[in-house]
């Protein structure tokens, strides 16, 4: 099962790399959109998690 999972991840990795090479070469702005959107989502998510941490820190100080 683990080998199958590893193989699946390896295939996904290869497909992702081929996608990145092809789209990065033929359509740099499409590639920028894919990477940029992921980055925007991650930064927005990180901001929310940081707020959780800030709240926890505040509550610990108040206690």
């Amino acid at each position: 099962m683990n080998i199958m999972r590893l193989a699946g991840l390896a295939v996904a990795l290869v497909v992702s790399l081929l996608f990145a090479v092809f789209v990065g070469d033929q359509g740099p702005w499409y590639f920028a959109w894919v990477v940029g959107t992921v980055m925007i989502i991650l930064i927005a998510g990180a901001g929310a998690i940081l707020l959780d941490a800030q709240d926890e820190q505040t509550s610990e100080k108040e206690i």
Partner: protein
Amino acid sequence: MELINPDVVDLSRFQFALTALYHFMFVPLTLGLTFMLAAMETVYVVTGRQIYKDMAQFWGKLFGINFAIGVATGITMEFEFGTNWSMYSRFFGDMFGTPLAIEGLMAFFMESTFVGLMFFGWDRLSRPAHLAITYLVALGSNLSALWILVANASMNMPDGAHFDPDTMRMQFDSVVKVIFNPDAQAKFVHTSVAGYVSAAMFVMGISAFYILRGQHKAFAARSFRMAALFGIISTVAVITLGDVLGRLDYEHQPTKIAAIEGLWHTSKPPYEPWLAFALPDDARQENHLEIGVPFVLTPLVAHSFDTPITGMTELEEQAGPRIASGIQALAALRRYGQAHDPADLAQFRAHEADMGFGFLAMRHAPGQDVSALSAAQMDEVVRQTEPDILPNVFVTFWSFRIMVFLSLWFFAVFALSAYVSLTNRLERNRLLLKLCMWSIPLPILATEFGWITAEAGRQPWTVFNRLPTFLSASSHGIGYMIFSLAGFALLYSTFIAAELFLMFKYARLGPDHGAHGAQGPHLTVAHDRKDAFSVASSLSS
């Protein structure tokens, strides 16, 4: 040949502009909210904290209202190509229809299918599976926009097609060239991230409303933080891609960029000012009341300090030989159509690149026939056609400036909001919160003006340098056009009123209220009524 009544052409343009602008009031929110929902749900799946599920469900409900009312408004435009723009569809349908068909079959159905799973699948799917569905909805809605913009880019920068003199239409050559058209790439990313900005301002503004009223504090603070960060990066991306589009227009649509900048005469680098204010006078071909920022125009447009930018007067003069060449192309094409002589075909090929300018000259030719002009008539027709190559400068100039000034406003609001949120000083900045609230409709307004800039700036062409707008419409009666225009205006205004009513209603009710899709009142979680301290305590326990 009898030309289509100019009033019918104007009414067809007005009707398309009206339906497109109405439709585009809904689109940006769909494009952006889906990825914002994906971001919220990602945090929910990663952290397991209920509040992020509540956020995804509440903002998902507002997305659902927008999606349900807005999505159908775009379908009428696809029919309008056939009903009101039949000459255009005949000439360019092979190119334009292909991406539209892919959009309908692939992206639209993908989006519509998965949106159902997204709304009704919360209790039926595992967390990762539901998250994957949300991402697919986001991808589907943005891919819909991609194919529309691929089609639009082929009108602005026709690439991957050739004109067939036997069928008298543009024929599709290369799908790769059409999809990877530089204009399509830049326009898609610009439009998509403009949707992100609209969604971020929407979420941030409504969250600011809750914070101002002291309601749903934990919910609103997290929504505000995520939207501010989402918005500031998206605004930077919008401005960057706007610059890329400007550069492409400078290279491929010099009349559009000259009109955008109100540049009647070729610029004098490096001093040439960027006009922040002016009143362009199309009739007299000059500007009134110019207020400019020196040394900005050349690097902004040409990305250099010493490259002159050709003005509209000089572009008119440069068009003269192309108009004469286009007239020869049409004359050769007509002879080829009658006798199929290879010599006529060869002559047509020699002038083919200017064929559109020949079409443009038809309006001024006796009997609208450019194939039998005398030398004197030719000179007169060319002279009369030269000013026709320019778009409406006043409209293009001001629609661009409104979009630009608004985007700078968004940058300031998002930057300040992100800073204030990250430093946990939101509640002390009530003026900023009010500004966020009142700024909710502005990104949608900016995208509307962006669309006007792109489309008004492309005139007088439907297919740039290939097919003029006055030759593209259908030969309807004026009564038919006015009746259908009034019908669309009434129907779409009803949709907008319904959307605004529902949005205001559910936004005011807030996340505590009501069912979410098939979920029932999932949002009545305890920490919506608690302050940040008790939320933190409950989360850590």
